[in-house]
């Protein structure tokens, strides 16, 4: 299992946690929780090794439109970049409700 970590700048507080997805074929689990400070940190656990650059690309894209201070845990078993994007957006949306 590969563990990957990324950090992004954050500008605002987030008040609600969110959980979406399932660690199943083609899907992934995203656990999003408010964090202190001005950093958004992302922790990925994936059973598919060697795709760090792909993860970075998807996350870079997500964080161009997202500036919440959060801790995001991603549990993945081989989802596509499209699914990752979708679940991240869903998690963000749930936490803004």
């Amino acid at each position, binding site marked *: *299992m590969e563990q990957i970590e990324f950090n992004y700048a954050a500008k605002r507080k987030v008040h609600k*946690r969110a*959980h979406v997805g399932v*660690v*199943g074929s083609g899907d992934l689990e995203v*656990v999003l929780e408010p964090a202190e400070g001005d950093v958004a940190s992302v922790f990925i*656990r994936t059973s598919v090794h060697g795709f760090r650059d792909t993860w970075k690309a998807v996350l870079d894209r997500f964080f161009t439109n997202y500036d919440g201070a959060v801790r995001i845990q991603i549990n993945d078993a081989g989802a596509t970049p499209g699914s990752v994007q979708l679940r991240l957006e869903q998690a963000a949306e749930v936490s803004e409700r």
Partner: protein
Amino acid sequence: MSNKGYNANFINRQSFIELDARERATALFDAGTSRELLGPFDRVESPWLPMQGVTPQADDGCVVMKGKITGQAAVVVALEGAFQGGSMGEVSGEKMTAALDLACADNEKGIPTSAVILLETGGVRLQEANLGLAAIAELMASILVLRKHAPVICLTAGTVGCFGGMSLAAGLASYVVMTREARLGMNGPEVIEQENGVEEFDSSDRALIWAIHGGEQRYATGLADALVDDDTPQVADAIRRFVSKGVPPVHRSSQVALYRNRIEELDTSRQWDPKEFRALWATNGSNEEKR
């Protein structure tokens, strides 16, 4: 309301099968009364999966919720079929067993509390083998105690169905609710074909699979208590009815003489046509629910 698939109601139906475990569990409670226990934010995960490179899920594929069903206290435990085939690991197994034990303790304190277990599972999680198997044995022991006080309702809707050791948990339940898409059996078709050949069970024959393991067959042979459409309100309604019904006078698994005699009467020299089998084992009354 019709129970045929293709009419105006079909378009309006809300698929229960398309819901994940958490959504299914929530749907069974009286609105606004449920809360999740040991959810994903508590991070109680499998200690064994990361050791072998398998990504764990934050709730270990088991959702425990407490709340009210038809005004009565209830606990719902749902296995997530999409995570490791809904298989029983150390943590998911213990969540289910401990939840039933807590329900039992409440019953003993004078708070009638039913349990609904949503079984989409292939049985033991092989990555945790003996702890998964032990968990099933312990779950079965807890069902035996709880079901004396309050109904333990098993709901299997598909697509995974209920197989392996967990089919014994279904066998111990006070009531079994199934959809047509669901399947219930100890051994799946692939395993039987593997062990005893394609003549014994052609695992590519989908019609045969549902004719033997499917919800309609199980209901028609008195092994399930209700057959529901894949429609969330219908499913929730069936669960409410069984919660209200309470503990049955005799549990199916305790009707030993009845079933032993039925087995003795079977002509084992040939395979049976599943439809023919329905005539032999037409429903036996007490737990039956007609739609």
